[in-house]
């Protein structure tokens, strides 16, 4: 702010989006690189599970509870299915369902949150109070109850979790959008005569997008863990569909015999959650300007 005519161009030359992305990825700390590698690996497994899995998803290939061997690296489960293949197919189901759930929850919570932040009024009050009520009930218990009422099916699971999760997205979207909506540049747009959609899409969303993207990652972790927990409890993804949560539940007794089988899907769950968190941490720090030393 000291001099009027500093030539900034000479300091920061323009780069293409691609160059910027490469540069950004190179500057990422080790934890974020690790996280991104793990996520990429998981998505690869999820997409190509039928090609890389040695056996079918619910194919019975031997005796129950067979120990790990050269043909079956992770051994066989309680009815003789190959655990490695189940883990690979499980990636597909668990990640796919979690991703779909989060997308739906962001569509509901994000749109309503931004809309109420900009318009305020009674609708804002109504939605905010409904969200308060929803958030006062623990998600897992609420989901268990609703699933018991609606019946166990994948679509019920997705829909119920999406609605419950959208309350949290609503809060974040509403609060961040509100802090942008009171800025002078939004008032300037209103004074110019801009319509609501333009104000939302051009003035508000670009300013809250980084936070929403980071939240998307975090919510994905939470939904993913909730699905695993529900499956473990037997109300989530139903057999014979492979899923990490139910795989832990099915093989949990093996732990008392010193067998590592239940740990494999559990580790798969833990690793992905940690990886997503690493990436989100880095992304938040990058975009929000948060620094550890402040």
């Amino acid at each position, binding site marked *: *702010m*000291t*001099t*009027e005519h*500093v030539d*900034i*161009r000479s300091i*920061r030359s*323009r780069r293409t989006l691609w160059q910027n992305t490469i540069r950004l990825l190179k500057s990422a700390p080790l934890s974020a690189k690790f996280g991104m590698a793990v996520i990429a690996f998981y998505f690869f497994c999820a997409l190509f599970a039928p090609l890389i899995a040695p056996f079918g998803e619910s194919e019975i290939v031997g005796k129950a509870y067979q120990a790990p061997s050269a043909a079956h690296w992770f051994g066989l489960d309680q009815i003789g299915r190959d655990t490695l293949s189940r883990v690979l197919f499980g990636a597909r189901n668990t990640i796919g369902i979690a991703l779909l759930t989060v997308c739906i929850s962001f569509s509901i919570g994000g749109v309503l949150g931004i809309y109420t932040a900009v318009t305020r009024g009674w609708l804002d009050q109504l939605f905010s109070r409904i969200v308060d009520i929803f958030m006062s009930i623990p998600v897992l218990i609420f989901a268990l109850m609703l699933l018991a009422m609606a019946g166990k099916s994948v679509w019920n699971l997705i829909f119920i979790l999406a609605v419950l999760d959208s309350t949290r997205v609503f809060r974040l979207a509403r609060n961040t959008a509100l802090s942008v909506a009171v*800025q*002078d*540049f939004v*008032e*300037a747009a*209103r*004074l*110019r*005569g*801009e319509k609501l959609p333009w104000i939302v899409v*051009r*003035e508000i969303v*670009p*300013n809250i997008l980084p936070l929403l993207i980071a939240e998307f990652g975090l919510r994905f972790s939470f939904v993913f863990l909730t699905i695993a927990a529900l499956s473990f409890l037997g109300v989530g993804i139903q057999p014979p569909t492979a899923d990490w949560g139910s795989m832990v539940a099915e093989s949990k007794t093996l732990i008392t015999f010193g067998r590592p089988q239940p740990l494999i899907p559990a580790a798969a769950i833990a690793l992905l959650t940690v990886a997503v968190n690493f990436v989100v941490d880095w992304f938040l720090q990058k975009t929000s300007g948060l*620094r550890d*030393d*402040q």
Partner: protein
Amino acid sequence: MTNDKKRIRGEALVEIRGLKIEGYSDDKWHPIIKGVDLSLKRGEVVGLIGESGAGKSTLGLAAMGYTKPGCRISAGTVTFDGKDLVNASQEDLRKMWGSQISYVAQSASASFNPAHRIMEQVVESATNHGVMNRQTAEKDAKDLFKRLQLPNPDTIGERYPHQVSGGQLQRAMTAMAMSSRPDLIVFDEPTTALDVTTQVEVLAAMRRIVDEFDTAAIYITHDLAVVAQMAHRIMVLRYGNLVEQADTRTMLKAPTQDYTKSLWAVRKLEKKESKSEDIILSIANVDASYSGVVKVLDNVTVNIPRGRTVAVVGESGSGKSTLARAITGLLPPSKGRITFNGKELPPKLADRDRDTLRRIQMIYQSADTALNPRQTVRDIVGRPVEFYMGLKGAAKDRRIVELLEAIELGEDFIDRYPGEVSGGQKQRISIARALAAEPELIICDEVTSALDQIVQEEILKLLMKLQKETQVTYLFITHDIATVRAISDEIVVMYKGKVVQQGLKSQVLNPPYPPYTELLLSSVPQMDPDWLTTLLKKRSAA
């Protein structure tokens, strides 16, 4: 007083030699202070002045042995009362802070804890450092409140920070700093956030108490006239270097460096007033309120002549910004009418058509929040061009470049984001956005108050040039009388939602004054070091 130990004028208290401070950003260390010496004797007040980014606050804090997070002292020494502060342990520094050295920050309301009573916070440092026990400390605080001329000194300490005014809180903070009778107080822009009429009282109180206790002080400000009242000696800083230093009177009379002279010169800009009978905007008997209870505008009648600049002055809370909101339609008036170009303006924003909106534009105080950080200059300036004029593609780009040239920025600014330009340039871009609509009236809401003096002058000059070229009318809201003098044709003085006076500049700024105008004008600090003394004498005589 209680402990007058070794307060002898003339003995050196603070010695800073060859100080260099660096700040960490963008993965690099950048110099903030580039080798500055400072020495301060007991009982002496030194003023540090300079623009933002000159390093005045950093230097002031360094005299306490403190650096902000992300900064480090890379060279030089800081000696306080014979002790080396650069290498002192945190424990030793903490013992000194609040007992031997204290700090008064710019915003008292942000520095007081809203959950505790004022008294608890004022006596805290004195009791914690064991200077005195609680009872004595409270008695002493009441004495300080009295000396600082706070109303009801015996009971004001029972209040919470939000229950007193900004000026009173700033004085309470001075009492807090003084409670342990420090050898040194660092004042960091303590009156910048206050209204001029309040500022006078706070300045007088601070000066008296520092003098009475023979406390050495470092007074940091960007306001020359203020520092002239407070300091024995002035140091001018720029880009982390010392430009020059001299005792106050010498410095005011005969600055030697060009930069210092340029700071002095800013005060001399003045537009010749001219009268006009052609009224573009007429506000008649307008009332407005936020909750429907308290009137923020009370029967306001103002006429704005075409092609002229009307300055609206008043303290915070006088209703000047509310007036702007009523004109723009953001806050429809509860009574009265506003006529623009002979036609009544619909009170609500939503009822105005696009062409009416185009004719009235607004420029904001803070360009940081008035420009969307995620849009480039092309988007920001181009949108009104497209929205009102219907220009697209190459024609739109040509118009944007024209506008950038009109505000004296080149076309290479077109793809920059607001975060990539300086504060003054941001304000220029705000002006370009308003100009893009080819308006007849521009409402300028404190557009220069967040800027450094030299940049302020450039912006004011630009606004005057644009008025000459386009015959645009300005409604200029400000609390700064120097700005009013510089740019206005007519002046409207507001106080508590009412119009006190409207008239040509020469009428309003010259006697006879209505009482409030006189109070306001006489409270504006002058470059004369005796101004405050004379004013206080005059007021106590009256």
